[in-house]
């Protein structure tokens, strides 16, 4: 995700809290995709939002995309800082589904982890943060066609990884 904010603004406490309530869970799942376990992912997301609340970080004009980028960077830093620690098996799922079994949830998680970074960003911003492709393109300063094709490629890969369960009529 390429983000070079031209203008930065300080978010109000209220708007930061609203962003956290609405997107905190998706951001934690996104941090898990960057290789963290759920507890660490939660910590990383909290740190990013607390920095925003304390005014230590100024968000760009597109705060959500900026926060996604911050979470990704913080996750990579966390991984680097803790790489000597013994890795705990990642068995705890960070997605839930009303009817799907655990194996399906875990296969979605693995499929998301295996996506290239840009494609994964597009999927998260579109599916779990509810942005349109146009908004994603503006937020990431990427041409709309590029975003659309990244998203399409990502869906193709997810479809092939998830198998027939994703094709059922709902």
């Amino acid at each position: 995700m390429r983000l070079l904010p031209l203008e930065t603004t300080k978010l109000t406490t209220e708007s930061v809290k609203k962003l956290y309530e609405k997107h905190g869970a998706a951001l934690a799942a996104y941090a898990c995709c960057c290789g963290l376990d759920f507890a660490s992912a939660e910590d990383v997301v909290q740190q990013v939002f607390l920095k925003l609340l304390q005014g230590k970080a100024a968000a760009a004009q597109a705060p959500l995309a900026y926060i996604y980028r911050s979470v990704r960077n913080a996750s990579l830093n966390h991984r680097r800082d803790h790489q000597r620690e013994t890795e705990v098996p990642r068995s705890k799922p960070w997605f839930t589904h009303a009817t799907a079994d655990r194996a399906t949830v875990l296969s979605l998680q693995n499929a998301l982890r295996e996506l290239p970074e840009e494609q994964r960003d597009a999927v998260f911003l579109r599916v779990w943060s509810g942005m349109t492709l146009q908004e994603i393109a503006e937020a990431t300063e990427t041409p709309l066609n590029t975003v659309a094709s990244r998203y399409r490629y990502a869906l193709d890969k997810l479809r092939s990884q998830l198998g027939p369960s994703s094709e059922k009529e709902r």
Partner: protein
Amino acid sequence: MEQQGDKLERYLAEFQPRAVRKLGVSPKGGHSWQRWLAAAAVVVCCLGTGYWQMRHARLKVKGMQLKSQTLLLTRIAMRDEKMFDQFLTDRSHNVLPSCQGEKSTLRVLAKE
């Protein structure tokens, strides 16, 4: 193709990311200063108990010594009065303040 994409998108949206804890709440529900306070309280309790036990044991030993000494002295007093007087005189040197010093209060009082 687009329809398939929409279907998959809806399917993916059915998966909900796991809920996260409230903003600003520490993972185990306690602030670090509370944990420090609890640890300090435990240390103070341990030290207090240790001190009390040590003091109690000392007092017990002292009491036992005093009791055995009293029995011994009674026995001496009954058997040999002179020896008992001598013993008390000797002990008094250890117990009463010495009046050997030139300006000792006891010596001044004795002169008066």
